[in-house]
């Protein structure tokens, strides 16, 4: 059975390989994004040496590595699920002898793996040449970072499963999906580290799952989180990735019972 799931990863990986335009346009967009944010942050810092706990060099690294990590954990599982619910093909998939949600997760992972190897790693090399990054010297920090973005993928995908399944309950969940997308980009810390937010907002954000997606791994990589804080950060990620299983299963159970196929 496990090999069947591995097969889903492989197939998605190969599918991604077939669509080159996405790949090239993605490279242009991420390079531009990192460039645009690099100069934006340079202007924000001006002469200041430290803001929100980040030095100017650290924020550059943070922005670059966050965007690169985003290319790995980002996926459109919510849209895929919503489309399959809307056109009714989810019903066929439910009959098959596998877990629909797990298959989606595997497909997302295949996509992420593709971007990690073909995109993130070469991209990081290019960005390193273009911008002055301060990369961690300790090899273990790299290992911890790669462990943490694996959790990022998991949590982000779980949130995508939840938003995608909203299509069971709403005739049209485009708005919800767009809402989620903006929310994740803002509150996960890709564009703005959580430590820049005012105190009260920070307290709220620390109780939400989003910071576990980008802020925590990015901070460990840039070295603003150290020592026991790193263990704590991984703990937060682990707790969220377990805690999110519950609403997903709950929603799935209810959805299966009240499912009706539109059109079809």
């Amino acid at each position, binding site marked *: 059975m496990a090999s069947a799931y591995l097969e889903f990863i492989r197939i998605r990986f190969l599918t991604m390989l077939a669509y080159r335009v996405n790949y090239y346009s993605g490279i242009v967009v991420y390079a531009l994004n990192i*460039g645009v944010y690099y100069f934006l942050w340079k*202007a924000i810092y001006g002469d200041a040496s430290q803001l929100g706990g980040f030095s100017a060099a650290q924020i550059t690294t943070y922005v670059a590595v966050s965007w690169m990590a985003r290319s790995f954990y980002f996926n459109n599982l919510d849209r895929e699920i919503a489309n399959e619910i809307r056109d009714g093909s989810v019903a066929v998939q439910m009959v098959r002898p596998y877990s629909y949600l797990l298959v989606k997760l595997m497909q997302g992972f295949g996509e992420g793996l593709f971007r990690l190897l073909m995109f993130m790693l070469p991209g990081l090399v290019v960005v390193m040449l273009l911008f002055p990054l301060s990369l961690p010297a300790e090899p273990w920090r790299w290992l911890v970072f790669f462990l943490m973005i694996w959790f990022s993928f998991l949590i982000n995908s779980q949130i995508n499963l939840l938003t995608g399944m909203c299509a069971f309950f709403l005739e049209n969940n485009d708005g919800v999906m767009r809402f989620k997308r903006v929310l994740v980009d803002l509150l996960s810390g890709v564009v703005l580290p959580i430590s820049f937010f005012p105190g009260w907002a920070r307290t709220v954000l620390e109780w939400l799952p989003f910071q576990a997606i980008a802020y925590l791994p990015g901070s460990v990589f840039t070295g603003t989180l150290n020592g026991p804080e790193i263990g704590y950060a991984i703990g937060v990620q682990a707790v969220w990735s377990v805690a999110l299983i519950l609403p997903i299963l709950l929603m799935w159970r209810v959805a299966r019972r009240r499912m009706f196929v539109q059109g079809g």
Partner: protein
Amino acid sequence: MAVTDKLLFSLSLFREYLANYLKTKMTYRADFWVEVLSDLMFNAANLIFIFVVFRHTAALGDWSEAEVVFVYGYFMIPYGIFSCFFSLWDFSERYIVKGEMDRVLTRPAGSLIQVMLENVDPPQLVGSLVGFIIMASAWASLGLPVDWYDPLVLIVMVLGSVMVYAGIYAALSAVSFFTDSPTGITPLIWNIQNYGRYPIEIYNRTIRFFLTWVLPFAFVGVYPASFFLERHQNFAMAWLTPVVGAVVMFVGLRIWNLGVRRYRGAGS
């Protein structure tokens, strides 16, 4: 058909499509508000970025917070109008992969106009309204004078900016005709709409050149808005907005038509 006839014809189509839109929307009333909310959320997120950043610094380059907010408010106006008429988010999936384009092409109206009208999304105009209010309040807090010609200039600038957007996205959507990828350039569309809202001076020459002459997003925000900002007035670039808009629109339409000619249908 004469040009005016064609225009009138398209306008009458627009009325029909709008009526249809309203009928379908009234069946899903909750959607309407979720959509308005999610679109405003997108702009709110960007404004939050500006507000949070300015808690840590007094100026961006030599632009104050109110000036940056002003530019953002301006940006929201053409962006809202553009999104109302050009919500081609899943163009390649719906029209190319599923073959809807076949249906469009058999009808006696411009293909781009039809695709636009089928996806018309009026809730987006709420964003324009909010943008206008933001711009007006920044206008007041900056103590800028209001000249009699300002409203007219604003209309010209907004039209120019909308054309810049429309041209770029018509061209980008047309890319789907040349490839058969399923998600196509949707992520691209999502990601690049953010450029051109910050003072162009903060970028290096490469990016400045890129945002001015290659993907001229600077003309949907900072250049046209600078007309009204006394301290950053840049008449030459501001007045280039309608010109660049017309050129980009023309090029975009040409690329679209080129793509349509290449389209062969996806089968099934």
